[in-house]
């Protein structure tokens, strides 16, 4: 369940807890998931152990057997952890070229047959009135 990415320059820092120099710890995920009472293995157990380890300064690498995928209580959460996602946020003032850079990256990745998605955040809430704004609260629109 590790991301398995081996690059990592010092610049690619995670928002919390990420430390390239942290000692790796192997976690028997199947065992941990089954460690609570009840029939069904729980993903929350694995998450809790990983959180605790990170807190202590370790970098957990979770190993599980193939059957766990079919037994785990939170399948969606499990799938996400197995094949960890990677996100690049591109911010910056308008006119700086965020979209142009994203499009160019997309073209290059497509050429390299690297599966990815681009989302333009500016379009996700381009609406009037903006939810929660004064106009919204006072119901000023028509």
């Amino acid at each position, binding site marked *: 369940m590790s991301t398995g990415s081996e690059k990592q320059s010092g610049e690619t820092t995670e*928002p919390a807890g990420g430390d390239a120099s942290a000692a790796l710890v192997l976690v028997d995920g199947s065992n941990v998931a089954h460690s609570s009472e009840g029939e069904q293995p729980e993903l929350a157990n694995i998450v809790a152990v990983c959180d605790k380890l990170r807190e202590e300064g370790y970098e957990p690498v979770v190993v599980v057997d193939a059957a766990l995928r079919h037994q785990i209580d939170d399948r969606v959460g499990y799938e996400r952890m197995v094949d960890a996602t990677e996100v690049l946020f591109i911010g910056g003032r308008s006119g700086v070229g965020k979209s142009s850079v994203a499009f160019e990256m997309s073209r290059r990745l497509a050429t390299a047959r690297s599966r990815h998605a681009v989302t333009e955040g500016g379009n996700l809430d381009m609406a009037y009135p903006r939810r929660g704004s004064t106009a919204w609260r006072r119901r000023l629109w028509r």
Partner: protein
Amino acid sequence: MAEKTLALIWRNYLDVGYRKLIYTKTNSVCSVEELVAAIGGRPRVVAVLLGATDHTIRKRHLREIGSAPEEQFARSRRAALRLEKEAAEWVVGVSTDARTVVSIAEELIELMGWR
């Protein structure tokens, strides 16, 4: 609103096997935690703040020229100052002055290890 919509969009991509997302938004580097929460899971996250001087921006001219170009420029300028101040320290700053889109795109792909 944007976060809710992002959550739906990314869920759709996830369901069919996408794992890499590029997300552009002016202030995205200031609200990474909310955005990551919307995406869900424990993604590897990299945030980049593109920068450019006022001079560069003027020269390029805002592409989205609407009803008030000066107002847009002023807004862009205010945003630049705010982003510089509010972006977390782990955000990677990339100056775009005198650089091509191609070289910046290459740098970011390299940064992500998405070769």
